[in-house]
């Protein structure tokens, strides 16, 4: 497994929120499932396409994603990931 830094630790911040979340989740879920996850939860929770996601809608998306991440990564790791995504939103 190649060690890869998260986009946030490299200081890169994609301007598109869907891309930013996908990049962060991809470290753990892989790019394919990360993209699927963002698309599925954007459509299911916000009834929008990932391209229409705004920074202000990110907390609602994260709240919906966290229980799903909890299933695979556990409560603590899912919480850390959710906090990292929200910290991105605040730092931008």
């Amino acid at each position, binding site marked *: *497994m*190649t060690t890869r830094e*998260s986009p946030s*630790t490299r200081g890169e911040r994609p301007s598109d929120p869907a891309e930013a979340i996908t990049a*962060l989740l*991809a*470290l*753990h*879920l*892989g*790019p*394919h*499932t*990360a*993209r*699927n*996850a963002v698309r*599925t939860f954007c459509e*299911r929770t916000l009834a929008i396409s990932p391209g229409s996601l705004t920074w202000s809608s990110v907390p609602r998306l994260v709240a919906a994603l966290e229980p*799903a*991440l*909890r*299933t*695979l*990564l*556990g*409560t*603590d*790791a*899912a919480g*850390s*990931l959710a*906090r*990292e995504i929200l*910290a991105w939103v605040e730092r931008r």
Partner: protein
Amino acid sequence: MKYLLLPVAVAAIALFVSVLVPPAHAFWTVATTATAILAIAAMIAAASCFRANDFMRWAWSLSAVPYLTASLSIVSMAVLAPGGPSALTLALSIAGNLLAVLGAALFVLAYLRAGFGFGGLRAPAVVIYAGGFTLALLLGWPIVSASVRGLLAAAESLQPVLDLLSTASDVGCFLLALPLLRIAFALRGGHLSFTWALLAGTNLSWLIADLAYESASGNAAALVAYRVIFVAANAAGAAAALSHRGAVIAARRAIG
């Protein structure tokens, strides 16, 4: 990638030892038990990464039980009932085989429960499932039919019952390895992919090991293959648990 090295290294060492010095039966009893204990320890370590109400804590805790019952069965057969399986061995085997299938099913269920989906076309997946199902039937049928014949011929012995039960469970694990592989492929490029890939490898191995064992009568190479596959599958189970633990720890550090 480092987690994949564990089962490969165990298989290589087992094969090397078999070729260099054909080891006694006792060596394999120790090797099988040692790798099963390694798997139990790794799965307990993985389960301890999660909170009590986390789905994965239950999945790893239940997955450790078949390795425990298998080790106890080996000890039971070696020490308590060297002449053949006892009622205790049968009870352990029933519990172990059922939980092996349940454990594999929980890892498939976890991904489905997360609701991330697979994306892509359904047709290739249907073809792979159909092919895998056919392969499971082709591999499992000779062993199941031999077990049924043994059951009819020796009504007093528990061994054919154990064989039939074990094969049915191994066919179940083989079939569940197909969705596990699909999940590993969906997670490719992410830390979690190794966990599901290694779990798929473990679950594919049991039926192949059974087949090697069935061909082992008078065939030394098949017996070596059976034993090597068995210890490597135990090591793959351990590696799957360790890789999941590693992925969870990496995710926890996400925020730094």
